[in-house]
């Protein structure tokens, strides 16, 4: 227990450092100290204060919320599916959420009703998780579940492409594509207020599933005899993941592989107990996203590199490594 707190404490410290650097980095270069001062004590009309408070701070907070969501969802899904390769992106939840958001935008539902985007995204995520649940309930093998996730993801991407295809506005295409790459750029407090409640609710539900995930170590039947209410756990994990991931994707687009990598980074320190890795995964996910965003803002390029591109470039090779490595453990 104290070892857990210690490790989470270290992660929180790293997160705090990342936050400080994130507030300092950008086209208007400030030192971390200057950024802190501007944040806390700056004059309202000073442009640097505005930059730190109204551009960088919301960006960082959205990054923390999304990173924590993805890390937590990855850990919860890996525990729930008893599969170390699960992640909201790999199992198709992120792309389904993306499809929902794109339909909300280009179907015109979002014109008066900004909440439409997170709601549609969450519905998309729920549908994808429902399909996967149906499969995992039949004790499907790890391979089947991953393949199903790929199938769902492919379908969602195809439907998104359809929306792009039939959109009458040629300029809309580049909009959709850029957004689907995933980015924290220009996220504001409005985004935080829209998505925040769903993220909090979803993450809360997933955390509540921790004890149940621990019992799942023995499989569904034995776990039930040990006190696991399977229906309630499904509600917590599936609904929680759909809400939080849906709202995250609605805010920043599809940022992949964070949920996949983070639990594997955390397990060497905290052990494999699926309940114990939840909180450290959330904190580590937040730190990872901030670090990736810092990279994205410091790598020199004519256009700012998209966050989703970076996480994909790093995460995909890691995923392949995991596939090879866990081959013998896969059931």
């Amino acid at each position, binding site marked *: 227990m104290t070892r857990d707190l210690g490790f989470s404490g270290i992660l929180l410290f790293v997160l705090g450092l990342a936050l400080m650097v994130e507030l300092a980095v950008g086209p208007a270069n400030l030192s971390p100290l200057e950024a802190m001062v501007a944040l806390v004590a700056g004059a309202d009309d000073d442009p640097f204060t505005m930059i730190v408070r109204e551009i960088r701070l919301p960006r960082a907070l959205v990054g923390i919320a999304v990173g924590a969501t993805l890390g937590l969802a990855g850990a919860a899904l890996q525990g729930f599916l008893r599969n170390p390769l699960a992640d909201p992106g790999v199992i198709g939840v992120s792309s389904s959420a993306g499809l929902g958001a794109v339909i909300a935008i280009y179907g015109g539902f979002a014109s008066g009703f900004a909440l439409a985007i997170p709601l549609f995204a969450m519905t998309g995520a729920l549908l994808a998780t429902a399909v996967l649940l149906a499969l995992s309930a039949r004790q499907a093998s790890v391979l089947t579940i991953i393949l199903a996730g790929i199938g769902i993801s492919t379908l969602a991407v195809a439907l998104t492409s359809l929306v792009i295809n039939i959109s009458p506005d040629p300029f809309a295409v580049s909009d959709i594509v850029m957004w689907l790459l995933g980015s924290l750029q220009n996220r504001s407090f409005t985004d935080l207020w829209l998505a925040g409640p769903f993220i909090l609710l979803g993450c809360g539900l997933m955390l509540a599933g921790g004890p149940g995930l621990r019992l799942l*170590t023995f*499989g569904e039947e034995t776990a039930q*005899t040990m006190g696991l209410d399977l229906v309630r756990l499904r509600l917590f994990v599936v609904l929680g993941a759909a809400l939080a991931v849906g709202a995250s994707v609605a805010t920043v687009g599809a940022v992949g592989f964070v949920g996949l990598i983070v639990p594997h980074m955390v397990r060497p320190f905290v052990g494999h107990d699926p309940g114990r890795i939840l909180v450290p995964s959330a904190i580590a996910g937040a730190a990872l996203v901030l670090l990736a965003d810092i990279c994205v803002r410091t790598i020199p390029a004519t256009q700012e590199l998209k966050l989703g591109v970076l996480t994909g470039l790093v995460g995909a090779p890691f995923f392949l490594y995991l596939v090879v490595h866990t081959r013998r453990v896969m059931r």
Partner: protein
Amino acid sequence: MSGSFAIEARALNVEVGGKPVLKELSVGFRAAQVTAIVGPNGAGKTTLLKALLRLLPLASGQVHLAGQDISARQAHQLAGRIGYLEQAPNIYWPLSVEALVTLGLPAAAAARAGALEAALERTEIAEFRHRPVLELSGGERALVLLARVLATEAPVILADEPTLSLDPRHQIAILECFRRQAKAGTCVVLVMHDLLMAEKYADRIVVIDRGGLYKDLTMPLGLDDQTLDEVFGIGRAALA
């Protein structure tokens, strides 16, 4: 007298996949006894255990636990009252032996520690306590899972083929452990495939065939020739 049964099935009818598997089955199991359930494949032995655990819905009939009707309860509501060792059990995460044995126990540290020590001792696996479970052999792992059940100190233990694919040394170790548990007062019910082992370690053998109770034998009388022939289609010579 039904009052003396630790766990009891009364006129159970259970369907699996739309087909009736248990038909008007009534059988009770007593405390401080090892009861072996034997029968051919597909007779409904596993189904009986799962029905008792409330993992399966009842088409009709009742299940009683310590005299209380639990037919309407769900499996998770009975945690700590019935211990379950499923057939070919899974362990999905490479936890240490200690972590696994205490998994699911209530958080109170002192009670956990006490239960852990007792369980490790009774299964004689204390030397493995810090090893990751997946590194152990099949037989050692089976003992760990048994220790997990023992740590809950449930008054009833149901085990489905606990000696499946184990080497003879570990088969005997596990069955000896069950016998000791029974002596201490636990109601132990084992579904077994090995008829000789059943005769040797059980106080009572219940023969299930085609969803119904065929015969209820108190040991050390042994399985009679008629049972061996009609239920299993073999002669006594084949067993020895």
